[in-house]
């Protein structure tokens, strides 16, 4: 009996949370973008305020989901993110980016261009000036470099999209290329959600029998310098991608 009440409540609270996320995605730009534009300051400052705003909004959102009993979470070694440049994380669920931005005040990220056409997400993307992956590799690299110069932490999921459950992680080379060609160290983040939910294979309303728990651990930096010694950056990126794949697969296995 208690189980059914718990399940029903979490189902309702999950639906409510998604509703709030969508509502926020639509209302926030309408209200906040004009205010941010009207406040004095340079474009960079406005973007920074937008970024902060999304950070606090996502923090509030996660806090809301936690207090509604949809999820619990723990963040380990948060301080290691203080001077992070390129943040690379595995990508099991839909909420990963929300968690990461909620713990990184200066977070920027690279988003797929489909999200710009999505009415629920284009506002926040515009607001914070996130980088849009328009398949113009040169352009994305240049924007990443600019972001690092502005002291943004750039969040990238090297898998490109959410992990297919129960499969080895395979990485695209984009993340490694950014690290090598902009010469920044990597801050790896491990994300684990138990029971696994909100994956590629789940619909949002297929909630787990037990309340989901997010474990987020910030690992020690991976230094880029050894990879810069490769003959060509394209070779360095291949080696780094292989090493990162192995790293993430190993770390995920250790947790399971």
């Amino acid at each position, binding site marked *: 009996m208690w189980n059914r009440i718990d399940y029903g409540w979490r189902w309702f609270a999950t639906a409510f949370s998604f509703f709030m996320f969508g509502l926020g995605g639509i209302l926030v730009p309408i209200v906040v973008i004009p205010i941010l534009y009207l406040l004095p300051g340079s474009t960079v400052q406005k973007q920074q305020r937008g970024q902060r705003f999304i950070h606090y909004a996502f923090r509030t959102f996660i806090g809301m989901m936690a207090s509604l009993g949809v999820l619990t979470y723990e963040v380990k070694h948060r301080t290691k993110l203080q001077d992070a440049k390129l943040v690379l994380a595995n990508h099991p669920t839909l909420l990963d980016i929300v968690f990461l931005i909620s713990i990184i005040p200066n977070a920027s990220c690279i988003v797929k261009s489909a999200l710009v056409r999505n009415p629920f997400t284009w506002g926040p993307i515009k607001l914070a000036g996130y980088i849009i992956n328009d*398949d*113009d*590799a*040169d352009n994305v690299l240049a924007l990443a470099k600019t972001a690092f110069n502005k002291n943004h932490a750039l969040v990238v999921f090297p898998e490109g999209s959410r992990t297919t459950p129960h499969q080895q992680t395979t990485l695209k080379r*984009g993340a490694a290329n950014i690290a090598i*060609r902009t010469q920044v160290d990597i801050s790896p983040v491990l994300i684990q959600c138990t029971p696994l939910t909100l994956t590629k294979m789940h619909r949002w309303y297929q909630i787990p029998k037990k309340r989901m728990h997010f474990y987020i651990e910030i690992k020690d930096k991976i230094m880029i310098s050894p990879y810069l010694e490769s003959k060509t950056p*394209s070779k360095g990126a*291949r080696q780094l991608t292989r090493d990162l794949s192995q790293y993430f697969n190993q770390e995920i296995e250790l947790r399971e």
Partner: protein
Amino acid sequence: MKNQQEIYLKIVALFEQLFEISPEDITLESNLYQDLDIDSIDAVDLVIELRKMTGKKIQPEDFKQVRTVADVVEQVQKLLNETKA
């Protein structure tokens, strides 16, 4: 003027040197993106190397049409012919 076979061999060597693709995996029909696992950043590197090889600038629009190794050979030959003209 260089013949197609020479250009092909040069490209195969370039692919090995740039992208660690072993020559026996490459044929004229190989699709760069599907068979040889070349991504958009690699394509940028490749265009730069081809420019060094031919001394001619490849138009990005032209390179967008390129799908297979044979297409690359054709592009390079086109550029080299332009030099002559």
